């Protein structure tokens, strides 16, 4: 029953052994990784099928809050299943150089799984750091001068975030004396003071480095335009969502007050404004997508700042939508990375890619039948129902951002579909491998279009479950408590 | 011949490490001793190829005695050095006339030269700066005003230690 721990242990084990394996046989290196990812997918899906209600697992047999526990509900298992899936899609099958990149990717997978499952604040921090360091290595893997410089800035900004997050964790520990998220939730009243709230702000900004939150996203355009598109797709698509997941867990469990929501709302709005305006100005596809990714994550944050189930549902919908669309878009930039005005005639050289671009762009803008529209609709109705001055401002910002988004995406699409000179065509041809993967993302998007009703139902179920604070606390702390803690817990209550 | 030397070498390393382990743990319980034997064996096996420094050791009872006379001589020198330094530091006029000069040594083994250099560092008013071939560059805090020759400096600074060290090292 306990084998979800394999989702963390297995990729780490393989990554540790990969240098030894690769010195034995080079070919084994290439297929060990995907095999492990398949196993992880299987473990996650096996749980997903049997899970009726949330479950907590005590690692090492030490009951929470003393030990570390994994919290398994639909949301975390969904993420745990998406991680190997995305990794399998974006795995460097054609890499012949060595084992290091594969090793880093496996470490990333393990860290991401841990981050999705963990129910302990400091454990989350550890996995977050593992995620960071692995992504540093991947971002620098291109080994160009610009990649090194960009990664250096990424490391520094991340390091700053680390310090802030660690400070926040230390503050929470001084206030509550515990690290388990559920236990913190139980003691949430002690965090409803300036110290507790600033701890939340510090953690949001610290973890927000990966989630591309407004003040700490200076690294985004640089890293995404110097790293290879697959890595950008992974970072923008998957990793940022995991950071967001951590923030909403903390929000749901420990910070029910309105100040925390306001903080998220303001940060989200600033992110939308900055991201979309910069995307509007950018002259090449990679940076345009990077900035629009910042804007999209701002929207996700705004969605989560809406109190109640509605916000949760909208946020998860936006997250999943972005998770499918953005990697597909990044994969298209491999050979379309010139300035946008040189993209003339791209549609003639590879029509499928042009079609995919159109599909992704329309869904991102939110043109009616496409999934992006439904996600945005959820968000807009949520904002309208919240009915507070700040939320109305957010609505205005959101709609304006959509217009801007439509403008730059559609003018790019016009360039792509307009007629160009013949000699460019070869350069603009997409590599079949990336195109295949992008097509898969497009197919997923279209498939979602035809299964809207069951998806919506599942979404609502997930949202209700994961926005239920008392359920989360009960799940973790209903394991048999050690007597001392039980006494303290009852004292606090 | 080489093998024999190697065996000596290994045994010396092993017993030194075991002694260090026993001193560190401060107990001779069975489990600690077993762990110590394992650790000492592993360490001496790993480090033996890299360490050529124990070549010049004389393995004889006389050597053991001269180790102790050396230690006694050394500690006396160390204490004298400190009172000397205390006198210099505390006297208001700061009576120093520092000088860099060389001394010569007849010790051949690296370990012996190193011990000599270290001893010079810890004795009255001298500090070994550089050791190369068989010369030691010494900073002397109270060199005579009129300058000294190599032989004189060697006699003043190094000979005493050298006599004792050569008892157990080549």
């Amino acid at each position, binding site marked *: 029953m306990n084998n979800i721990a394999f989702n963390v242990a297995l990729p780490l084990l393989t990554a540790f052994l990969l240098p030894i394996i690769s010195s034995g046989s080079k070919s084994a290196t290439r297929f060990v990784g995907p095999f492990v990812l398949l196993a992880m997918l299987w473990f996650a899906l096996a749980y997903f099928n049997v899970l009726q209600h949330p479950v907590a697992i005590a690692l090492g047999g030490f009951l929470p809050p003393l030990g570390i526990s994994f919290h398994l509900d639909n949301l975390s298992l969904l993420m745990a299943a998406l991680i190997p899936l995305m990794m399998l899609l974006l795995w460097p099958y054609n890499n012949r150089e060595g084992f290091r990149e594969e090793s880093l990717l496996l470490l990333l997978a393990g860290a991401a799984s841990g981050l999705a499952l963990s129910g302990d604040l400091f454990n989350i921090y550890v996995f977050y750091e593992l995620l960071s360091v692995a992504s540093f290595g991947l971002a620098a893997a291109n080994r160009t001068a610009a990649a090194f*410089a960009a*990664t250096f800035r990424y490391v520094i900004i991340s390091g700053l975030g680390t310090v802030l997050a660690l400070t926040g964790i230390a503050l929470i520990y001084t206030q509550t004396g515990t*690290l388990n998220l559920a236990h913190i939730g139980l003691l949430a009243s002690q965090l409803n003071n300036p110290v507790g709230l600033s701890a939340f702000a510090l953690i949001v900004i610290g973890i927000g480095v990966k989630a591309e939150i407004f003040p700490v996203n200076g690294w985004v355009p640089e890293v995404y335009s110097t790293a290879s598109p697959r890595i950008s797709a992974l970072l923008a698509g998957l990793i940022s969502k995991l950071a967001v997941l951590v923030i909403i867990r903390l929000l749901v469990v420990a910070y029910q007050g309105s100040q925390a929501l306001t903080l998220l709302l303001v940060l989200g709005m600033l992110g939308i404004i900055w991201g979309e305006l910069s995307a509007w100005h950018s002259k090449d596809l990679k940076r345009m997508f990077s900035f629009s990714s910042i804007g999209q994550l701002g929207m996700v944050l705004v969605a989560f700042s809406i109190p109640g189930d509605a916000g949760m549902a909208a946020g998860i919908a936006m997250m999943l939508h972005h998770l499918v669309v953005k990697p597909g878009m990044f994969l298209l930039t491999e050979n379309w990375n010139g300035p946008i005005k040189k993209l003339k005639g791209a549609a003639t050289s590879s029509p499928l890619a042009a079609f995919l671009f159109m599909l992704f762009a329309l869904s991102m803008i939110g043109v009616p039948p496409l999934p992006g529209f439904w996600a945005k609709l959820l968000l807009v109705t949520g904002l309208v129902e919240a009915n507070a001055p700040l939320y109305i401002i957010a609505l205005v910002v959101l709609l304006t951002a959509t217009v801007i988004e439509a403008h730059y995406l559609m003018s790019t699409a016009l360039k792509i579909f307009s007629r160009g000179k013949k000699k460019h065509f070869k350069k603009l041809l997409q590599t079949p491998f990336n195109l295949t993967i992008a097509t898969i993302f497009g197919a997923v998007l279209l498939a979602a279009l035809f299964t809207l009703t069951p998806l919506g139902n599942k979404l609502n179920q997930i949202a209700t479950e994961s926005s239920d604070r008392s359920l989360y606390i009960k799940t973790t702390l209903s394991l048999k408590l050690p007597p001392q803690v039980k006494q303290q817990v009852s004292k606090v209550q | 011949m080489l093998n024999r030397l190697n065996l000596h070498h290994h045994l010396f390393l092993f017993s030194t490490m075991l002694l260090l382990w026993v001193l560190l743990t401060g107990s001779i319980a069975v489990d600690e001793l077993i762990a110590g034997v394992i650790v000492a064996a592993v360490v001496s096996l790993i480090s033996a190829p890299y360490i050529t420094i124990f070549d010049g050791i004389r393995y004889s009872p006389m050597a053991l005695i001269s180790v102790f006379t050396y230690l006694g001589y050394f500690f006396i020198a160390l204490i004298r050095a400190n009172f000397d330094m205390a006198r210099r530091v505390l006297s208001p006029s700061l009576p120093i006339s520092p000088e860099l000069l060389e001394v010569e040594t007849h010790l051949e083994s690296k370990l012996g030269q190193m011990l000599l250099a270290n001893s010079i560092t810890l004795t009255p008013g001298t500090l070994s700066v550089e050791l190369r071939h068989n010369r030691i560059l010494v900073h002397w805090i109270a060199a005579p005003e009129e300058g000294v020759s190599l032989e004189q400096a060697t006699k003043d600074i190094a000979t005493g230690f050298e006599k004792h060290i050569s008892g157990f090292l080549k």
Partner: protein
Amino acid sequence: MTTNLIHWLLYGGAMGLIVIGIVGVVTLTNIFRIILALVIAEAGANLLLVIAGYRFDAIAPILTGQALSAMPTTQIMVDPVPQAMVLTSIVIGVGVQALALALVLKVYKNYQTLDLREIHHRMLADIDHSSGVISLLSEEQPKGERPLPEPETKNVLNSGGEK
């Protein structure tokens, strides 16, 4: 009273280290010094974490001597959890710093400067160049002839960032 004063001083000191470090990271331009500032900030955060478990007049959470047999011990001990966390976060910090230093080596090798602004400019120019966008910078200084600064930073440690 003294206990409170000590607590306040400890927290204040830790916060002060964090602030010094972060101000350094944000304002300095020499990339080597930025790393050092980051180290200071991390030290501050670790200190904050470890004094979260501090108690006045308590001993280290290790059982020795008579305490081994008489359990649970009567002596006051400090909180072991923050100590374990600090161990973890120090090791994490070391890893990140080593990686950052490796990147500094490579960046310095490629751009021959330690000034972050300069590096940032060149990096943006490189990105523009590789994506074919002609930026302002590379118009002023035609491709391939970006002048290198004087190699005055011969010694990374001593010369610092006075530029």
